[in-house]
């Protein structure tokens, strides 16, 4: 790894007479006189120098638009820059260039364009073909090869004036041959976009270029070597950007996603090299001074230098020294940042989910609806409840229709008129009926008792019909506490049965008196009160929820939810079914992008697979739910505490001006309660961030897990965990600062004790 001093993407590189050159975006050009150790960068115009070739004491560079510069060496470290070369008169784009002399070159481009520059003007040497020509290479000033789309191979023996077709092997007759290299008079190599390596040798008197064969790739070694390898087949799994042949059998290949590979036997065994930069770096060119010394250049100004390409089979390029803190950080930072992003994602969704659940649960817990209210409902109210969803549906549709009507009528100058919700009319009639009933006959005790008896019967029936399933579990004594796991459905049914029996007893014993009952215990004076009509069913539901989530460890919840319940899979599979690739093609918007995004690049290996969004990763889904569900239970209690801190007079005041219960909650209680609970909620959110580290147990690549992976590679335990800690601190501290700001921003003037700064 060399400090290049530039951040621009480097697109091409050349080695010439002991000097190294690298060229890149925005006209950037760099030179190194010491074999690639130190670099000086300059700007040659503003074009992206995508193509280059060297030879004849010159380097030619060209952009896809046709701009050309020739750099002519005139002495040790000195050169003439010929930037007055007329641009290639290309119709579309230039794909490659090759020097045929110190001032002459040939350029190829799209749709079969071939242009030859003789030092003065460009001559059109196109063959009339339509295939895009992708690469050109000259052995000397006369013999050259061109490769292109659809297995095209052209050859010349007169410096590019006339060209002849050559035959590519059948297997690649429809492939695009993206690179060709005329290495010597007995050897030339070419490579296709699929990664087929083609080889042509001089056979007897038949010169190079006539007969091509596909190299059988026996083994592909992953970076780091070792004894593990992948069987290669006839192609590499990579799309190679650059090929540098440095011997009859020796070549270096460079490509995207950190691909830098070396073959010592003409492609039979290809070993990928360990690189000291991110695996995401794209390498665009390799330039070798000789068989061992050279550089590879890529995105973001990355220049890698080697002095022993091929000396050691698996470790060609410079290996990072993990004992050097700078290099260690350079290596681990990208992983940490990946982890940071992954953590932030589950934390954000977790907080949102937890807060929503918390608000809902706290409202349930504080809701005053008791069994008494349930008993007092009459049939018209029940019908009203049943109708409400339909009313909402109609209301939504009508809002849209009315909006359109309003636009149309106002556009035509007609008086505006909006449609009424028919169900709304029904509901208001029902409400009147229910009010009349309530006035005339406030309580239908017979009906309540009847409902109670039915519930009682149903409850007993439920329990006795499911007890057998519990018995079938063959549990003994205290082992029964595990029955909920052994048979979740029947356990839930038994709970339901018990609840029905309790409801049934209460309802069946109704005599119109809803007050608290005092019971005397036998002959003794001990008295205790029961208040069955004060049971609040909504509160009970919320309490069961919070009790479950607050009384089990989060790490176990993570594993139960992900591995046990497989929540991730259960959501991902139907989710992907719903938002499938074909549906999202053309329908994708920013909302669906949050849910899932697919790889839409047909050339990519991941084509058609989810590559982003919540549904991409099961562990991601499970982590969000585990954090959100758990945090919701805690946030519920925090918010409930804040609601309890609002003086009861506020509810009275709200009700006294005619607001109903939900309106008062929404407009009066909640706005104040949420302000009160910002500090404890901040506590809870910071906790959530820290708890998110437990997501590593389900294989989610958040920051703690990334730390473990870094240690697995680098063995730097102190540094890694230290950096992980600092990363967490940065997140939670900025969250805390934000909450402090929020608290200050939403503070009600004149309220509360101000503790100063």
């Amino acid at each position, binding site marked *: 790894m060399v400090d290049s001093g530039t951040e621009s993407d480097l697109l091409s590189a050349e080695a010439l007479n002991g000097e190294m050159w690298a060229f890149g975006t925005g006209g950037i050009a760099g030179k190194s006189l010491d074999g690639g150790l130190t670099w000086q960068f300059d700007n040659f115009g503003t074009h992206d120098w995508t193509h280059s070739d060297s030879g004849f004491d010159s380097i030619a560079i060209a952009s896809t638009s046709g701009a050309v510069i020739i750099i002519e060496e005139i002495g040790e470290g000195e050169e003439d820059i010929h930037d007055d070369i007329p641009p290639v008169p290309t119709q579309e784009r230039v794909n490659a260039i090759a020097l045929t002399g110190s001032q002459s070159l040939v350029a190829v481009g799209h749709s079969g364009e071939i242009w030859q520059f003789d030092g003065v003007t460009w001559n059109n040497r196109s063959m009339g073909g339509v295939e895009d020509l992708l690469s050109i290479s000259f052995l000397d000033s006369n013999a050259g090869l061109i490769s292109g789309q659809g297995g095209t191979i052209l050859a010349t023996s007169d410096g590019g004036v006339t060209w002849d077709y050559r035959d590519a092997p059948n297997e690649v007759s429809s492939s695009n041959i993206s690179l060709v290299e005329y290495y010597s008079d007995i050897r030339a190599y070419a490579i296709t976009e699929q990664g087929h390596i083609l080889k042509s040798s001089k056979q007897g008197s038949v010169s190079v270029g006539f007969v091509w064969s596909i190299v059988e790739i026996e083994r592909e070694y992953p970076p780091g070597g070792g004894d593990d390898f992948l069987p290669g087949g006839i192609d590499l799994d990579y799309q190679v950007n650059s090929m540098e042949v440095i011997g009859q059998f020796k070549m270096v290949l460079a490509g995207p996603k950190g691909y830098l590979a070396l073959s010592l036997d003409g492609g039979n065994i290809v070993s990928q090299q360990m690189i000291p930069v991110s695996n995401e770096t794209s390498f665009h060119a390799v330039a070798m001074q000789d068989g061992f010394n050279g550089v590879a250049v890529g995105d973001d100004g990355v220049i890698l230098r080697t002095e022993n390409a091929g000396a050691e089979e698996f470790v060609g390029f410079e290996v990072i020294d993990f004992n050097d803190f700078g290099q260690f950080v350079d290596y681990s930072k990208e992983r940490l940042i990946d982890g940071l992003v992954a953590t932030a994602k589950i934390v954000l969704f977790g907080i949102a989910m937890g807060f929503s659940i918390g608000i809902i649960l706290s409202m349930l817990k504080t809701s005053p609806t008791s069994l008494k209210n349930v008993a007092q409902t009459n049939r018209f109210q029940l019908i009203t409840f049943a109708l409400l969803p339909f009313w909402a549906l109609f209301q939504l549709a009508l809002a849209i229709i009315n909006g359109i009507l309003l636009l149309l009528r106002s556009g035509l100058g007609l008086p505006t008129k909006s449609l009424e919700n028919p169900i709304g009319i029904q509901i208001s009639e029902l409400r009147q009926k229910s009010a009349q009933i309530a006035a005339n006959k406030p309580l239908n005790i017979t009906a309540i008792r009847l409902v109670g008896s039915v519930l009682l019967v149903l409850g007993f029936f439920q329990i006795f019909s499911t007890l057998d399933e519990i018995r079938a579990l063959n549990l003994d004594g205290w082992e029964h506490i595990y029955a909920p796991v052994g048979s979740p459905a029947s356990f839930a049914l038994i709970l339901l049965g018990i609840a029905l029996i309790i409801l049934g007893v209460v309802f069946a014993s109704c005599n119109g008196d809803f007050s608290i009952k005092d019971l005397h215990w036998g002959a003794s004076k001990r008295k205790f009160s029961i208040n069955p009509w004060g049971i609040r069913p909504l509160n009970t539901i919320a309490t069961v929820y919070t009790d479950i989530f607050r009384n089990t460890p989060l790490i176990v919840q993570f594993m139960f939810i992900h591995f046990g319940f497989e929540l991730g899979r259960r959501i991902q599979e139907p989710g992907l079914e719903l938002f499938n690739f074909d549906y999202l093609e053309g329908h994708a918007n920013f909302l669906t992008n949050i849910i899932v995004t697919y790889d839409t690049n047909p050339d990519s290996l991941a084509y058609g697979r989810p590559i982003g969004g919540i549904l991409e990763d099961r562990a991601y889904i499970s982590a969000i739910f585990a954090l959100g569900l758990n945090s919701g239970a805690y946030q519920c209690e925090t918010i409930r505490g804040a609601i309890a801190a609002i003086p009861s007079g506020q509810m*009275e005041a709200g009700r*006294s001006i*005619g607001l109903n219960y939900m309106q008062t909650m929404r*407009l009066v209680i909640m706005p*104040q309660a949420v302000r009160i609970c910002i500090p404890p909620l901040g506590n809870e959110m910071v906790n959530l961030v820290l708890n998110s580290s437990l997501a590593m147990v389900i294989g989610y690549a958040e920051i703690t897990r990334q730390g473990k992976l870094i240690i697995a590679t680098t063995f730097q335990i102190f540094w890694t965990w230290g950096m992980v800690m600092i990363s967490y601190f940065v997140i939670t501290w900025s969250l805390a600062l934000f909450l402090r700001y929020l608290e200050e921003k939403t503070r009600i003037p004149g309220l509360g004790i101000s503790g100063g700064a």
Partner: protein
Amino acid sequence: MSDPILSVKDMEKTYVGGVHAVRGVSFDVLEGESLAIIGSSGSGKSTVLRCINRLIEPTKGVVRLKGEQINTPASNINSVRSRIGMVFQSFELFAHLKVIDNVSLGLIHVRGMSRDKAREVAKQVLDRVDMLDRTDAYPGNLSGGQKQRVAIARALAMKPEVMLFDEPTSALDPELIGSVLETIRGLAEEGMTMVVVTHEIGFARDVADRVLYMDEGVVAEEGPSSIIDEPKSERMRAFLSSINE
């Protein structure tokens, strides 16, 4: 004699836990009349008041507003409450809302007014209680007297048929009481029907048309405001003398 606007008949309230706070209270309030309820702490005054607009559900009895029974499930309690203004001892302004929003909240969400219209009405009402210059203040930055006047404005904005005052001056410093009493007096003179639970005997004497003395959940004595000077019952006499000390 015209029909009473507000009529309470045989009201009883037993709290959960068995406290029998109100034991059969009946009274009528005529249009434009102001009724003062006095009595010692725990005598059930505030309970009676809260039972009228059903912030507390009376155990027994009938409450009628303009002849219509309002303590049945049949009556729409929210619309009934919006017809009965209530002012609390501890103001109970909505601390997170500005003065103007406190007053216009009910207009927007109960009366369904537009925001601008509601603010307009709110300003008129605030002008009436002499608080127009503090419309953009938060309740936390107001003095007790100002808060109570905003609370009165909040109730007034709904154009109530009856106003209930629950010890409107008990939480105020003596020097702040004056402005609030002045406001209430002004309302009484304009003909607002009101029921005032108060410890301000002087105020009851001056402003109230009738006085109701409650003791231990029952109406111990009832009559024109002159009964304060000449109480008939022993209990009321004892109560008044304990206050005057």
